[in-house]
């Protein structure tokens, strides 16, 4: 009985005055992602995908971007600062594929893993790339356009900043297909350095003035194709077949309405998500392949509805 009382008392005392101090520190792998801009739905969905993956894989993610796609100077400034913050990895969608190369040694010296996303390297280094197979995407656009116009008609490209491999590869893929696989007449690659909608519209106006016979145009981003579409409508040239790139709801709606012939899909969400997943795999010491191609598909009037639906659902994830 006495023992029981002592036991009981000691239990009460023990539970009563536990002087505890719990400390929890949360530290995760840090990743800085620098994208080209945040002015299009494409980049917003890339951001979405990255943030989703970051929360799934418990990664501290900081996404930064210059004001517009041609602000290579600001982007390199951000990159310099990113290096100074010494994250575990940097993923970059470079505005200037050449300009970035000078920072690669410094990045590696600081023990930071470097990844290219959406925008391939301008050299043949073995820095991992996650994004579209842009040359193939250009070819896809060429094939779609060739089917829609009659032989011998004139076609052109409105491409984004040619310092960026994404745009130049798309343009060259398109040109390659048109020149070698079809009898169409290839006019020129018209460069819009900031890949904006207004840039696309200006380019279209120029092309229409210069080549009144033009029948088809491939724009290497959704923003530019939207600009081109506006110009065609304004110029009453509904006969011109437009092919764009990127999976973006406004452009998809235009495809559905028949204003745009086709879009080559580029799933921004998927690119963002896979970028983070690949980075996590590398940081965990897993083997990763040098290139991770996120599949491109052709979106036409017949299947635009499905893409649009998927796109909306993805946004809700």
């Amino acid at each position, binding site marked *: 009985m006495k023992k029981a009382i002592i036991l009981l008392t000691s239990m009460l005392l023990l539970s009563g005055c536990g002087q505890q*101090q719990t*400390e929890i520190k949360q530290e995760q792998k840090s990743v800085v992602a620098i994208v080209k801009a945040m002015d299009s739905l494409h980049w917003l969905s890339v951001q979405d995908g990255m943030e989703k993956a970051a929360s799934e894989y418990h990664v501290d993610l900081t996404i930064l971007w*210059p004001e517009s796609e041609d602000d290579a100077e600001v982007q390199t400034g951000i990159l310099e600062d990113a290096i100074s*913050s010494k994250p575990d990895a940097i993923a970059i969608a470079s505005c200037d594929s050449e300009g970035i190369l000078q920072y690669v040694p410094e990045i590696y010296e600081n023990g930071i893993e470097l990844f290219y996303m959406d925008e391939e390297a301008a050299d043949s280094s073995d820095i991992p790339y996650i994004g579209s197979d842009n040359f193939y995407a250009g070819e896809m656009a060429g094939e779609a356009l060739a089917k829609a116009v009659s032989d011998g008609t004139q076609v052109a490209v409105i491409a984004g900043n040619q310092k960026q491999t994404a745009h130049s590869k798309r343009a060259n893929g398109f040109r390659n297909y048109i020149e070698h696989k079809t009898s169409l007449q290839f006019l020129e690659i018209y460069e819009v350095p900031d890949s904006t909608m207004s840039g696309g519209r200006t380019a279209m106006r120029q092309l229409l003035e210069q080549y009144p016979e033009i029948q088809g145009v491939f724009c290497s981003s959704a923003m530019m194709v939207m600009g081109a579409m506006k110009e065609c409508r304004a110029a009453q040239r509904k006969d011109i077949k437009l092919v764009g790139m990127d999976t973006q709801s406004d452009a998809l709606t235009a495809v559905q309405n028949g204003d745009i012939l086709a879009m080559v899909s580029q799933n921004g969400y998927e690119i963002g998500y896979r970028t983070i997943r690949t980075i996590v795999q590398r940081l965990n010491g897993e083997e990763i392949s040098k290139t991770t191609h996120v599949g491109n598909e052709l979106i036409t009037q017949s299947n635009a509805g499905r893409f649009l639906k998927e796109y909306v659902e993805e946004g809700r994830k």
Partner: protein
Amino acid sequence: MVYRKRIVFGLREKVILTVIGISMLATAFLSILFYNRAVDIIRNSHEEAIASSLSVSADTFDSVMKDGYLACIYAAYSEEMKALMHRDTTYEKLTELLERIRESSSSIYSVYCYITEADIIVKVGREGIEIAENSPETEAWISSIADKKGENQFSPTYNTDISSAIQRTFFTYEKQIKNGDETLGSLFVNIDERDIYFKCLQSEETKNTNCYITKGNKVVSATDTGILNTALVKQSNTISVSKKMAMTDYSMVSVSDFTAITAELRKTRNWILLVAVLLNFVFCIPVFFIVRRMMYPMKELEKTMNQVKEGDLTIRADIYRHDEIGNLSENFNEMIEQVERLIDELVKEKMLKKEAEIEALQYQITPHFMYNTLSSIRYAALMQNSNEIAALLQAFIELLRLSASDRGAFITIQQEIRMVHNYVTLQQFRYQGLFDVVFDVEHKTEQFYVPRLIIQPLVENAILHGLNHCEGKNRIGVRVIQVGRFLAIQVKDNGVGMTQEEQYNLTHGVRKSKFSGIGISNIRERLQLYYGDQGSLTFYSSPQHGTTAMITLPIADHPDIYTI
């Protein structure tokens, strides 16, 4: 020394105390177990909740800082800014631009721009526009912020704005404005610590939880501005959760007073314990009655036992139930019965002995005055020279004296034989020499003790019943010999003897009349009493061939050996 009186608990009290004690223990154990479990659960869920809300706050902090950082870097690299980096009279365009930068994000408190060429600092903030010449304070402030080479450029510098009249605490981003390699000036984007507090921390704070933003161990944002720039004090019994920001070098820290969080729970635990104690006291009452009911047969048995102890052997315990107590009562009753039987037997034995002794006394021919009178008669006979009568009287007197004077139950063989001798002398006078008695007593047996009047009745028997009155000389032989540890006493006559029937009657104590055979059965009873199976009386007889009576008994050389 102080002696304390020890409280002695009865069985009932012990049972009650045990029941109550165990139930108390169980309740206490359960409540403590549940309390600890609940504390663990609360701690875990609290930690989880804090961690997730901290990451939300951390995200807010980072996004505010990101806005500031992007505003700063965009402006510093813009051509418009570069173009305005020179001496001016009003700096109207520059202040307009700085105002636009400031308004690009709601969290930016002020934007400062230092123009190297003019050595002037232009400040645009919520308080208004200030254009000031460079001063030592400004210089000190600028160098405190600009001097952070090699550090994380994403992380703003925490500082006190010593360059202004109102010294606010800022998180400041700084970028140099360059044209090629030429430095034109510096741009400072300031985010107020109070803004950060209200945006990131205030919503997280509760009565028991304080939130801080720290860098290293230093507090940089908190409710209490007094603790800014001091180390975070660790307290006991707290849960502290910290989250490192993704972009900047700051950490979000939440410190919860765990004692306060679990106070309610502790109150509940104590309440349960209190209720348990009260309930147990209440339960004491039914337990008391139940136990009393259960213990009733026990009490009854105890009462019966006490009565038995007092000497009442007739009482029996009641059997209520066939449980352990029932068995106990049953066994007790049996035991009492057995004791009673044994005592009865003992009493009966004592009574028998008394009776036998009384019978023996009755057999004695006692009163003193009788032989005194006889003595007088004997003297008269002597004086008249009637010697024969005197001798007879002498024998009679001696017989009487021996029977009366010696009080003990045992006498020596010698005395017994003498008595028989005197008796025979008297009887010979009566029967006028009809018989002879021959004594053959071993000398060594003379001092052995035998019960008084053990031989005399046999001789009397032989004279009364065995004499053959018709034929010549009757002989009676009395013989005493020692056989090992036994004494054999033989009284033999050559008289009429006994028929089978007579022998049977004699052996089995069937009396023909009130007085006949008393002596024989008396002898037998006494032998049985004193010696048990060791003493015996046997008759050997046949008609016309005399009777032999034989007593065997164990030797006793002291009168008390077989005395009861």
